[in-house]
C-alpha cells in the first residue's frame, strides 16, 4: 500500500528559485506601476518615483544591520539568568 505523498513544494530548489523571481518581479512591478498611477506625496521630499520602495528596502536593511550589530552585545545564552 503506497503512502500519500507529502506536500513539499517549498522544499524544492526549482520552486524556491521561482519564488525568488516572483519576488523580484513583484517588486519591480510595484515601482513600474507608479509611472501609470498618480501617487500623492505627503511632503516635499516623498514625491519621486519609488519613494515608498526605497523607504521599505533601506529602512529594513538598516533595521536588520542594526539588530545584527546590537545582537553582538545583547545576545546571550538562554541560561544567562539561571547562572
Amino acid at each position, binding site marked *: 500500500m503506497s503512502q500519500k505523498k507529502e506536500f513539499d513544494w*517549498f522544499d524544492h530548489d526549482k520552486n524556491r528559485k521561482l519564488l525568488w523571481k516572483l519576488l523580484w518581479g513583484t517588486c519591480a512591478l510595484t515601482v513600474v506601476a507608479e509611472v501609470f498611477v498618480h501617487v500623492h506625496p505627503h511632503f516635499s521630499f516623498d514625491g519621486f518615483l519609488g519613494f515608498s520602495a526605497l523607504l521599505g*528596502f533601506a*529602512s529594513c536593511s538598516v*533595521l536588520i544591520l542594526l539588530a*545584527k550589530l546590537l545582537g553582538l552585545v545583547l545576545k546571550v545564552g*538562554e541560561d*544567562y539568568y539561571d547562572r
Partner: protein
Amino acid sequence: MIANLYIPPAFILILGALLVPLIPGKAKNIFIIALPALAFWLISQLPHGELLGVHFFGHDLSLLRVDKLSKIFGYVFTLNATAVFIYAFYLKDSQQHMSALGYIGGALGVVFAGDLITLYFYWEWMAVCSTFLILARRTPKAYGAGFRYVMLHLFGGLVLLAGIVMHIHGTGSIGFEAFTERTLASYLILAGILVNAAAPPFHAWLSDAYPEATVTGGLILSAYTTKTSVYTLIRGYAGYEILIVVGCVMALYGIIYALLENDMRRILAYSIINQVGFMVCGVGIGTAMSLNGAAAHAFCHIIYKSLLWMSAGSVLYMTGKSKCTELGGLYKTMPLTMIFGTIGALAISSMPFTSGYTSKPLIIEAAVNQHLVWPWLILEIASAGVFLHAGIKFPYFVFFNVDRGLRPGEPHKTMLWSMGFMAFLCIFLGCYPAPLYAILPFEMEPHVAYTLSGVLKQFQLLMLSALAFFVFLKLLKRTDTIAIDTDIIWRKGGRWFYLCADKGLNFVNSVFNELLHKGASTALARYFSEGPLRLTLAVLPADDAKRAQISRYFRAGISPIGLSVAVAALYLFGFIILTLP
C-alpha cells in the same frame, strides 16, 4: 430607577468565573464561551450615559459609564474572549478559565469605569488575575516570570494610585475624564498607565512573562493589559505630545528586539510593543482621526494578534517547541494553521485587504495632516519593520525555512474553527471596514480606506521590505540565544546589589579593620604597655638583672609605687617639654 437595573459587563464574567468549578465536562466550556458572548450582547444593548452608581466611603462611584469609546473596546474585548474560549475548548483546567474570566472581566471593568477609584480597583484586579495565567504553566521559569510580572505591575499600580490620590486631593473630583490640567498627579497617573502599556524602559515584563504563560494564557494576555492602557490613554491623555515620542520609541524598539529573538512567542510579544507604539503615538497626536485610528487599530490589533498567538499556540501545543531554531517545515503537516497564521501576519503588516490596512493608516494620515514629518517617517519605517519581524519572520521560521523532521498534524478542530473565525474577521474588516468605522468614538471626516495611490505605496513598502528580508536572510540566521533587555535591572539587580554590598562594604570594612583595629589600636596598646617600660629603661640604666626585674614588674603591672611615680613624672616632664611654644 430603571437605570439601576443595568448590569456592568464585568460582573457577568467575574461572577460567572465563580461557577466554573461547579460545572462538569463539556458544559463547563460551553458555559465559558457563553459568558463573553452574553457580555457582548449586553454591551450592544446598553444606552449611553452613567448607568450604575454606588455610594462608597463618601464617594459616588460610577460602575457603568457607557459611551462610544467604552463600547468599541467592550465589543472587541468580548468578541475576542468568545473566540479565545472556543480555541480553549480542549482545556479542562478550571483554575486557568477562572483566572482568564476574572482578568477579562477586570479589563471590561476598567473600560466601563466612570471614576478613578473603580478604575484603580479593576486595574489591580487584572494584575492579580493575569498572574495566575502565567503561574498556571507550573514551570520554574513561569514561577519566576510570574513573580517579576506581578511585582512590576504592583509597582505601576502604586504609581497610579499615588497619582490618583493626588488628583482627587487637588481637584476634589474622582471622575475619570481627560486630564486637561498637566500636573504632577496627571503625570504620575500617566506613568502608571505606561507601565501597563509596556512603554520602555518598563516594558520588559511583557516579553519576559507572556512567552512563559500557558498556550491559552499567552493568547489571552496578549489582548487585554496593553489595550486597556490604550483605552485609558485615549480617554485621559489625548494630545499629550510626549506620547508621540514614547509611541515612536515603542514602535522601533519592538522591531529591533523581535528581530533579535529566537522564541516565536517572544517575537510576538515584542511585536505587541511595536503595535501599541502606533496607538500611543496616535493618542499623542490627539486629533479625532488619530484617536479613532488608535481605537480602530486596537480593535483590529486584538483580532490579528490573537490569531497570531493562536497559530503560535497551536504549534507549541502540537510540537512542545517554540524556538525558531527547533521549528521549521511545518507547512507540510499544519497547512491550515500556517494559512491562518499567515493571514494574521499579513494583517499585522497592514497588507491591503486585511484589517491592519484599514486601521493603521488612520494614525499615519493624522500625522501627515498635522505636518508631523518625523513621527510620520518613523511610523512608516516601523510599518516596513512590522512586515519584516512579524509578517515574514514569524511564518517563515516556523512554517518554512528548514525541515526539522517535525510531523505534528493540525490541532483540535475547535482551535482551527477559532483561528478560521479570526482570519475571516481580519479579511472582512480589511475589505469592508464600514462596520468598524461606524463604531469609532470621535466625529471625523469620512475616511476613504482604499485609493489606488495608497494601495500602490503600501505594496511598494511591503514588497521591498520582503526583498530586504530575503536578501539579508543570512544575517537573520537564528541562534539559541535570548537578548538582554531592561529586565536585567530587576533580574540581575538584586545580585549586583549584593555583589556591590559584598565587595564594596566588605572592602571598606577590611581596610578599617587593618587600619584601626589591627593598626592603630595595636600600636596604641603597645605604646601604653611598652612605652613606660622603654622610657624607664632608657632613663634608668642598670645591670641586666635589674633591667629584667623592671621588665617583669611592668609587664605584670606591679611596678613599685616610687618607680611608677617617677615614670609618670618623666612622662609629664616630656609632655611639658614637647608642648612648650
